[in-house]
């Protein structure tokens, strides 16, 4: 396949809007190819979109669907052509998940949070999502074995457990959510800060995070720890954010990447002492990120309208439910996690929601280096992913932001600096925040760029980047990004002018990390006891079997050459 004459943005390879041809053969970008010619003359061409943090599969998502038939009814599309039926808006069914990402030019999405014991369910759903390449991050932050290793300061055993857990879950990396808080929620409480001890385990959130970061680097995992801070969603929590980032400054990354990725920073950049004097601390956070190089983040942008909040931060969800008097699902997961799901509507009339909306944008606009901040909505927590074009249009257009702000609470300008920010992102920066940076941050070498050998994932938009003034013509930008002219996945045109025309099966990434056999042996003693006494399932029925990952892409990592022993 040859894509002719597009205006290509491939920042990872130093290409910032050059007219050039792209060739794809055997599913990869190559120097020269024959076959189908796609006329992209003058059009915006980028690598396929990569979403490094989205809730797309597993128990939380299905809980959302089951408790929200009202949402499933939105966005219903009948089966037609190659497509199975679509339903849902904030909690779409699996088919819609694949089709809608592909329609926007996205070809890769990573599920943000899976407990090991429930990973089988996550993979069942990932397998049903058409087109996309995907992976799932694995939850470790409230795990008994983790906390016991941390308590014993046994990082080698912790690393062995992480390796074992990733393999058992067919998981991609370490996700940490409100560390310690999920365990405390087992008896209905929470941890209040980084140094508040976890009941019954005599460790602090700070120790859990630091130890997992050490283990992450000991195993040389492709991704860093992926962190959802303590105190998320609470006024005044920016101090927890800064404190946590400071505590991770000494972590030495084992690869060319960050030491910590902070997810949905918007929910952790809050000032004030209550919702009454709630205000943005995004400038402080952005300033910290600008001055340090060990952390990256994603926006977690909030947009007005419907959302479904879903997170392993169960106490937060209980709070959401009490605050909004909305329906509440909770799910505690033995020895590993807790979680919750609560529907939400963000209102333009609510000052708090308006401030949250502004914070996400401030974070992205005040962070100087676009490689440090990804465009996300923590879908569907801040807004479902289908609204990414709205976020991008806001980032590219000061007039659009101004006209939005004019419709919001008069007090807003006192609570945020957004009104004074002149910066408008350009296409190179957008390509970084939605393609190149998420791939680099996740450690996906073949994604997010168009160099030779990269995956043949390309999006072509019906927009002339050299003629369209994104600042003034933001409506055009938004429309073009919502419906790619072509989405090409592994060299196959999967979507043309918004119509899905092919639904190839995507890959599932997981990380197979090796740990030292001696540590693994010590670990097994612990785990055997855990399964005999505490788990409600047998160890032999615990790990995800190969049959659940039919098209795996295994990334090898770990210490030494010794491969990890087969999970029992």
């Amino acid at each position, binding site marked *: 396949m040859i894509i002719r004459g597009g205006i290509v943005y491939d920042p990872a390879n130093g290409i910032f809007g050059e007219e050039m041809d792209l060739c794809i053969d055997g599913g990869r970008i190559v120097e020269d190819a024959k076959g189908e010619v796609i006329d992209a003359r003058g059009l915006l061409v980028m690598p396929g979109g990569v979403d490094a943090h989205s809730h797309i599969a597993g128990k939380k998502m299905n809980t959302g*669907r*089951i408790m929200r*038939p009202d949402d499933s009814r939105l966005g219903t599309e009948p*089966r037609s052509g190659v497509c199975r*039926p679509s339903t849902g808006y904030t909690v779409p069914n699996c088919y819609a998940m694949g089709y809608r990402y592909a329609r926007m030019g996205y070809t890769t999405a990573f599920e943000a949070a899976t407990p090991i014991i429930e990973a089988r369910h996550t993979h069942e759903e990932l397998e049903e999502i058409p087109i996309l390449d995907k992976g799932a991050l694995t939850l470790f932050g409230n795990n008994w074995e983790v906390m016991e290793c941390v308590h014993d300061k046994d990082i080698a055993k912790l690393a062995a457990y992480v390796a074992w857990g990733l393999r058992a879950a067919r998981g991609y990396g370490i996700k940490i959510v409100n560390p310690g808080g999920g365990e405390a929620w087992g008896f209905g409480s929470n941890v209040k800060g980084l140094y508040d001890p976890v009941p019954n385990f005599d460790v602090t959130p700070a120790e859990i995070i630091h130890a997992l970061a050490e283990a992450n680097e000991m195993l040389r995992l492709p991704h860093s720890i992926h962190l959802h801070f303590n105190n998320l969603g609470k006024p005044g929590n920016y101090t927890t954010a800064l404190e946590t980032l400071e505590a991770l400054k000494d972590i030495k990354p084992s690869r060319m990447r960050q030491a910590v990725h902070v997810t949905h920073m918007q929910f952790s950049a809050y000032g004030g002492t209550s919702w009454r004097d709630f205000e943005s601390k995004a400038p402080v956070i952005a300033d910290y990120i600008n001055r340090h190089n060990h952390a990256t983040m994603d926006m977690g942008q909030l947009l007005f309208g419907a959302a479904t909040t879903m997170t392993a931060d169960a106490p937060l969800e209980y709070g959401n439910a*009490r605050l909004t008097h909305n329906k509440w699902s909770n799910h505690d997961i033995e020895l590993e996690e807790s979680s919750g799901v609560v529907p939400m509507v963000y209102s333009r009339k609510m000052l708090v929601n308006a401030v949250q909306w502004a914070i996400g944008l401030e974070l992205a606009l005040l962070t100087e280096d676009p490689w440090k901040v990804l465009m996300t909505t923590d879908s569907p927590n801040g807004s479902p992913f289908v609204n990414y074009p709205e976020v991008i249009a806001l980032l590219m257009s000061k007039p659009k932001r101004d006209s939005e702000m004019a419709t919001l609470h008069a007090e807003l300008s006192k609570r945020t600096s957004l009104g004074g920010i002149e910066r408008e992102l350009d296409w190179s920066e957008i390509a970084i925040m939605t393609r190149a940076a998420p791939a680099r941050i996740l450690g996906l070498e073949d994604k997010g760029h168009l160099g030779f050998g990269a995956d043949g994932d390309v999006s072509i938009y019906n927009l002339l980047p050299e003629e369209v003034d994104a600042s003034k013509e933001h409506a055009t930008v938004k429309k073009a990004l919502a419906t790619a002219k072509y989405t090409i996945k592994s060299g196959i045109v999967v979507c043309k002018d918004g119509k899905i025309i092919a639904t190839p099966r995507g890959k599932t990434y997981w990380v197979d990390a090796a740990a030292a056999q001696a540590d693994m042996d010590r670990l097994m003693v612990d785990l055997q006891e855990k399964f005999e*006494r505490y788990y409600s399932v*047998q160890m*032999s029925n615990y790990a995800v079997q190969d049959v659940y990952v039919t098209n795996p892409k295994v990334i090898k990592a770990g210490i030494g050459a010794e491969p990890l022993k087969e999970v029992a």
Partner: protein
Amino acid sequence: MRVEDAICSFCGCLCDDINVEVEENKVKRVRHACRLGSSKIMGHERIRSPMVRKDGELKEVSYQEAYERAAEILLAASKPLLYGWASTVCEAQKKGILLAEEVGGVLDSTATVCHGPSVIGIEEKGLPGATLGQVKNRADTIVFWGCNPAEAHPRHSLRYSSNACGRFTSEGRSAKKIIVVDVRETRTSKNADMQVIIQPGTDYEVISALRMLVAGKGDVVPEEVGGVAKKELASLAEMLLAAKFGAVFFGLGITHSRGRYKNIDNALSLVADLNSHTKFVIMPMRGHYNVGGIGQVLAWSSGYPMSVDFTRQAPYFNPGETAACDLLAKADTDAALIIAADPASNFPRKIVEELAKMPIIQIDPYENPTTLLADVVIPSAIAGVEAEGTAYRMDGLALRMRKLVNSSYPSDEQILDGILESVRSLRSSMSLRGGLKDDN
């Protein structure tokens, strides 16, 4: 040969510590299972061959002939019902949903006459739940409401609930408070610290009274509610509030008594209220081993967990209109595919009479009263014994069922594949619209 850690395919407990001894491809001995599970795994008299009704009699035919007859029935129908699904694995359920899409039918599960009202309650209020291991490790107070696990889920108490030992419950039964609320004494209530006998059909009132007591508004509660003295209810409320971790398990006694989904709505609200004071979770006691699975698979495929109408190409869900019994009561369906279920025994009589009027395809390892009504009978391998696959426990945990013995019978998934292929080839020979490929 010994199979260790096999998973029992009887009830929603999905006990996964079963040891099975197999000799000459036959199950000889089952260890650790309860009597119900053991009997299921040991098996009994099977349907020998596919059968098609000709001149009023079921006649043995080949599988292919049975698939083709099934396809004819499904394609001739304007609104076929594809019902059952609770006692088979997710792999078959996925195929069933695809078949329902392709023939434009309604897919419903046995939940409709079981925990269907619980699902509707959850749609109203959400489900504050936990995995069973969380209950095992933490719960010091357990309420069984309208359920009788001692007889229906015999190993539940020892593995997960009243008699289980875990990290924070190392003393087991002796350090726990067990409460049974029911309309009569049961075997479960013999193991209880407190038994509350309520008048039939008063669950809603009793829960409402408890909510008032928990909220400190006991003054509005009358002296007697549902036949229970206020004093007794007040001491029950105190026990709930004194819990460090409480768990409510509920069964059909509350989902199918007066009030139905409103009872569940109220029970879910009680648990949400209790979380302002302490930690509480709630869980339906699911019956068939994978009735949870069909809810999960349907939800991720269609957005809805039961009673999904695919006749308009897009999923449509409206319990009261699209549930199996609703369709049959209004004679709004004209053919049925019944898999891994026995509606002839479990549906109301009037509904069964309606069912008997239409062509029926049955897929099942065993003969049951539904077989008497069936026009096509297709015997299958027993999922979880003779075929592998995925099942979801009552707490939503997915496990992989092991295959214990080989079988000459095809699996449910293979049978549905056979029917799907026959549907596609019959349709293309009839050159009708509808299949995925035809729409291009």
